[in-house]
């Protein structure tokens, strides 16, 4: 029986259409995998099902009956539950309180003993009593917190469960435990939508798999008929949507052109270990890896923003390991942070002040800022970055995402660095601004600046990079490719762990 049917679901944000006429079916007792790159529209679609967003058109049917879902409570009444990627539990409260939070909020006082008993009944089939309802959530390992999230979701007569990358922060063993829980829920007739980037999750757990790309449902296949190769092709897409600027032609990858030499970089928390790579002058080096592979963490490790256990980072012939971020910055190794609002910009300040933040030293004389220089610098940078604004005194918060990103670029580049690390340089940026940023990056490289580019959009990494370093999902650097080897088949094969998976392909499919 069809537990959930979506017909012709579309969604636009302003002029930007993110979902195009989506059709989707979920059977009761089925695990239906959804794959797709970041920004493909998975979250938007789930939020429409769960009532966080309203679709522009189309129909949602539950058990064959058309329904209207205007808000989350409507979805909950229909038995739709959503476990989001980030754990959103009250860390200081007990397991039982978390599971029944909604009920506690409505009620007039509650009986802890009764709650704990009910919580135990829900948890028992999920984890065999290994979670104590009286335990404080903070003390649980992440995987058990995830189970509590699921228990919370299904406590309310759940029939359709949405899981958004539940394994992204779990270790292998923890993921296995979680998968047992999911399989059990399936046997109870709950329909499960399972979003994941990991091939092993999809092939190991799902009955069917659908791929979303750029807001379109590209394919839906029974798992038995799907291959890693097909899924990779569907996700990456055959055609390249954006024209990227031409790549560097005369790169000299010789020893004397090495700008940055990373040797055996190992994270203190174990997110990655023994990372080795070299960066050459004027090169754009892409880092390809799935979400959670540790790309951003490596970059933070390079720039002193994250504690490392060991390794060397040779920059300008000296080991900068253990130096402070500001010292590394002054040396000329700068990073464009991943989250422009949290880590990058001073949103309530104007463009001028943002542009000079990293450049203060150069425009200060006798402790005083030379306002004329500051002004000229800001005008110049904002012109060369092509920031669309009413003037350099416009407050950055009031700019569009793409223009904010350009201001951030201006801020970082004002310092005229030797190496720029770009973490998600075009996230949340419209197509036009994206192309401009790409052009700027290439221009920068042609002027001799070396660029490390991290992006979760594989197309972008492939289109921009002269060389691509690949990370598998456990933060292991599995090699690099140049020239014609920079293609999605090749890269996806490595970063989705398919190279590991294919060795034990038969074993896993028989297992389920």
């Amino acid at each position: 029986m069809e537990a959930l049917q979506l017909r012709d679901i579309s969604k636009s944000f302003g002029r930007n259409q993110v979902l195009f006429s989506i059709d989707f079916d979920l059977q009761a007792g089925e695990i239906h995998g959804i794959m797709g790159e970041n920004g493909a529209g998975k979250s938007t679609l789930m939020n429409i099902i769960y009532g966080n967003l309203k679709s522009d058109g189309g129909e949602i049917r539950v058990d064959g009956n058309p329904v209207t879902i205007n808000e989350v409570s409507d979805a909950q009444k229909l038995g739709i539950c959503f476990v989001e990627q980030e754990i959103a539990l009250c860390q200081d409260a007990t397991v039982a309180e978390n599971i029944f939070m909604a009920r506690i909020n409505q009620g007039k006082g509650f009986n802890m003993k009764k709650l704990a008993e009910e919580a135990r009944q829900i948890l028992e089939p999920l984890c065999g009593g290994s979670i104590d309802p009286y335990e404080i959530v903070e003390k649980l390992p992440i995987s058990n917190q995830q189970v509590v999230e699921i228990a919370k979701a299904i406590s309310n007569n759940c029939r359709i469960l949405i899981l958004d990358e539940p394994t992204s922060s779990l270790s292998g063993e923890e993921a296995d435990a979680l998968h047992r829980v999911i399989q059990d829920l399936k046997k109870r007739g709950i329909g499960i939508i399972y979003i994941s980037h990991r091939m092993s999750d999809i092939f190991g757990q799902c009955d069917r798999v659908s791929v979303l790309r750029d807001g379109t449902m590209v394919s839906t296949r029974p798992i038995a008929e799907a291959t890693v190769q097909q899924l990779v092709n569907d996700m990456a897409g055959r055609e390249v949507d954006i024209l990227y600027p031409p790549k560097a032609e005369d790169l000299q990858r010789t020893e004397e052109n090495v700008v940055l030499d990373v040797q055996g970089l190992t994270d203190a928390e174990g997110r990655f270990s023994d990372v080795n790579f070299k960066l050459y002058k004027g090169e754009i080096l892409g880092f390809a890896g799935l979400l959670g592979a540790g790309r951003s963490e490596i970059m933070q490790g390079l720039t002193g923003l994250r504690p490392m256990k060991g390794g060397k980072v040779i920059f300008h012939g000296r080991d900068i390991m253990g130096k402070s971020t500001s010292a590394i910055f002054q040396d000329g190794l700068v990073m464009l942070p991943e989250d422009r609002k949290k880590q990058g910009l001073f949103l309530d300040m104007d463009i001028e002040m943002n542009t000079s933040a990293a450049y203060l030293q150069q425009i200060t004389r006798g402790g005083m800022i030379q306002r004329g220089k500051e002004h000229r610098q800001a005008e110049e940078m904002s012109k060369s970055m092509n920031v669309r604004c009413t003037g350099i005194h416009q407050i950055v918060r009031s700019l569009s995402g793409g223009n904010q990103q350009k201001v951030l670029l201006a801020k970082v580049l004002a310092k005229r660095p030797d190496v720029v690390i770009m973490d998600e340089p075009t996230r949340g940026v419209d197509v036009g601004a994206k192309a401009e940023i790409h052009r700027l990056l290439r221009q920068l490289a042609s002027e001799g600046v070396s660029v490390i580019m991290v992006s979760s959009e594989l197309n972008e990494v492939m289109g921009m990079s002269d060389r691509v370093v690949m990370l598998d999902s456990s933060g292991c650097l599995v090699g690099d490719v140049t020239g014609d080897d920079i293609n999605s088949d090749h890269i996806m094969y490595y970063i989705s762990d398919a190279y590991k998976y294919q060795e034990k392909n038969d074993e896993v499919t028989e297992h389920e």
Partner: protein
Amino acid sequence: MNETQVKKSSPVLDFFKRLKNARETSLILIIVAICIVLSITNPYFAKWANIQTLLGSIAINGILTIGMIIVMISGGLDLSIGAVMCMSMAFSAKAITLGVPPILAILIGLVGAAVCGFVIGQIVTKLNLSHFIVTLCFMGIARGVVYVMTSGISISLVSNLKTMPTLAFIGSGYIGGTVPMSFVIFLALAIAADLYARKSSGMRKVYYTGSNEMAAKHSGIKINRVKVLACVACSVLAGIASVIYMSKYSGVSVSAGEGAEMTALSAAVIGGVSMNGGKGTVAGGLLGLLFIVLIQDAMNLFSVQAFWQDLIRYVIVLLAVILDVLQERARKKKNS
């Protein structure tokens, strides 16, 4: 959204545009209005004697407010300024009664205050504790030090000050027989602080840190050092205020500066200094103080009962802040 390519904006036009939107402009207008109303309705307001009292009374709170503004811009606040002022003063006064030369005595007091600020800053940054709780504790600690030192008895410097004319002049002298010396000191500090806040790269770093700590860090700014220095600056200013206090009142009462942190805080907030950091100017905060002082003066002139004064004052502060939030909200709505 009406977005165009970067165009060179006329600096003059720009200046007026910014002037129109500045908090300082509206505060000045309000203050002028209050002054006009007061001078019409009350014959004593515009008298030089009243103005002299006003100017003399603003110096101590004014210097404390400058410190508060700096810490608030860095993203914190300092509840200990009144107590630190008292402690710094107790150090100096004690030293003077023991025969230490006044300059050295004042230095001892200032160093005491600076150490206080440094320790506060270190605790806040190293342990990542909130300014609120740390300075709340220091409010008690500094006051406690005073009690222990003095056994709760005021230190009188009346006889000492007779032999120290310069020190006495600071708090109670008049330049040209008319303008209080303390006000001149305050005004000089205020102008210097305002210029420093607008032009120096040191203070700009304080703004960056308060506006977005992570972004400041990513810009290569040593945020911990900035935050500690802001705390030190605030405490040292409290130390400077203590010199004027000591001189003006010829001694130290153990309750000196009680509630001063609240006056400074509300002045800063009225003057547009954000509790979230990164926003506000020294001039704005001090105009906020002037506003409060005028309200206080008006209540005195109209002989409002003392029991009513706090109530009225803080209701006005609250109204001012609410009005501000509503205005801000309206502006944001217009922009988006």
